């Protein structure tokens, strides 16, 4: 009975996974398909779309912009996240609920609201729209994810390790650097990778705040209207998917190493 029920659920879950992966599996198929129209039957193998992609100067600029934004936003978000995660897991202070609520708010706020409100303030303050303003926005939306990952890392710390360091004459800062930081390092790397992935993929904030500078998602969005560019976008999408999988696998690897290092049992997942 149990096995039967389990196998029904397993089949359902596998079908569900097929539904989740269906669109992604089409990407490489059409990226290598020798036809300008995305349709069956397939027309033979080509790498032309990848060549076209590599030779596109606007795309290269968009990629550079996106990388610059993603690196800056992930470093900033993780640094800010370290403060918030450390404070919320180590200290019990008044106003902690509302303070953490505000920091985590972007998680449940539609991104369009974040984008619109930032746009209004930046324009009112006379800040010109550029890559820099996108970094500001992306840091804000990546911060809650970084805090969530880092809180898990910090909360699993054994407090007595820190106290032992104080007893052995370490100062607050050196104890943090020598004892705590190495233990939460996997969490930090994981938060960096996660924030990087989110920023690289974020569209609506970049759409509002980038001015006339292209980022990868805004460039892709602008090209979706032109049927001629679609095969190239398929090639680009294939590479982006591969990169995301690589980054997430790394993030997951570091998260698990962190779990193992602090001696917990693995509960799984980015939550």
């Amino acid at each position, binding site marked *: 009975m149990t096995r039967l029920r389990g196998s029904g*659920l397993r089949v*359902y*879950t596998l079908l*569900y996974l097929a539904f*989740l992966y*269906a*669109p*992604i599996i*089409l*990407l490489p198929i*059409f990226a290598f398909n020798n036809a300008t129209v995305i*349709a*069956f*039957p397939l027309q033979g193998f080509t790498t032309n779309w990848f060549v076209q992609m590599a030779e596109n100067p606007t795309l290269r600029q968009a990629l550079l912009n996106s990388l610059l934004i993603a690196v800056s936003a992930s470093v900033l978000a993780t640094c*800010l*996240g370290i*403060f*918030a995660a*450390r*404070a*919320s897991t*180590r*200290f*019990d*202070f008044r106003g902690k609920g509302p303070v953490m609520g*505000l920091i985590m*708010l*972007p998680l449940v706020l*539609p991104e*369009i*609201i*974040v984008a*619109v*409100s*930032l746009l*209004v303030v930046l324009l*009112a303050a006379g800040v010109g729209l550029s890559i820099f303003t996108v970094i500001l*926005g992306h*840091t*804000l939306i990546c911060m809650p994810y970084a*805090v969530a990952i880092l809180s898990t890392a910090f909360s699993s710390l054994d407090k007595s390790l820190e106290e032992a360091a104080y007893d052995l004459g370490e100062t607050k800062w050196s104890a943090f650097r020598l004892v705590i930081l190495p233990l939460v390092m996997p969490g930090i790397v994981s938060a960096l990778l996660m924030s990087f*992935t*989110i920023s690289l993929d974020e*569209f609506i904030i970049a759409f509002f705040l980038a001015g006339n500078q292209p980022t990868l*998602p805004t460039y*892709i*969005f602008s090209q*979706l209207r032109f049927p001629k560019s679609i095969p190239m*976008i398929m090639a*680009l*999408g294939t590479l*982006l*998917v591969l990169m*995301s*999988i690589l980054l*997430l696998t790394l993030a997951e690897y570091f998260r698990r190493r962190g779990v193992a290092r602090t001696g917990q049992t693995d*509960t*799984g*997942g980015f*939550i």
Partner: protein
Amino acid sequence: MATGNGTETGQGLRLIAPPLLYAILLLAVPLLTILAYSFFKDGYLTIVREFTLENYLATWADPIFRTILVRSLMVAAMVTAVTVLMAFPVAYFLSFVVAPERKALWIFLITIPFWTSYLVRVFLWKVILGFNGVINSGLKANGLIDEPLKFLLYNTGSIVMTLSHSYAPFAILPIYVALEKIDRSLLEAGRDLGESRLMTFWRVTLPLAMPGVVAAVLIVFIPTIGDYVTPTVIGGGKIPMVANLIQAQMLDIDNKPLGSAVAISAMAVVTALSLAFLFLNRRFLKVRA
């Protein structure tokens, strides 16, 4: 607490100051600004700082706004229902059937599609469902249809399906976490006391999983209302939702006070609905607390 509460508050606040300051400057201040803007007058290229309710009156008197708001709510409600109902068995499978050491791998597999280029994923549904898309060209090549099926794309149904696909992991993870927290001995107790498997699920598992279901509902419902990409790409611009309206007011028409009023109105409706939903489910949420 050996250090005493006063110093602990001080230490905690000092430590959290940088991220808090960032969130105040780039989140609280901007949100308050659009709230203020929504009560200001639009003076063509400038904003006239004069209190008025005109923007809200104009917003709510506009039949287009009401149509779009109702449509967004309907779409979000359908997406939420579909996503959560489809996600529950998956979360149940992860929590109750999968061996503990393989859980992380399964969750990883489920989250990967979610993190891969949102824009490309949404567009791929257009490729799949389109007039000359994968389904139509595939069916035609096999001789199953002569004319492409037109009902696949550019309608509310295809928007709902694309959004359900996008937000799937959002629903699975909270339910999974709630199921993981259930003390397995409670289920055994239910069985020992003579309940059938189904009744144990209905009277023990489901009520205990409700906090996760409630979280899943909110976590899917709130962002889907504000989705911009899917109605634009899948709806072909013909089925706008609230985000499209906000974008049009803010950028194309450039009436920031009116755009702010639309944004605040939509947010107020969403918040009210979310709170009402929490209130209706308060009995389940109290169990855990």
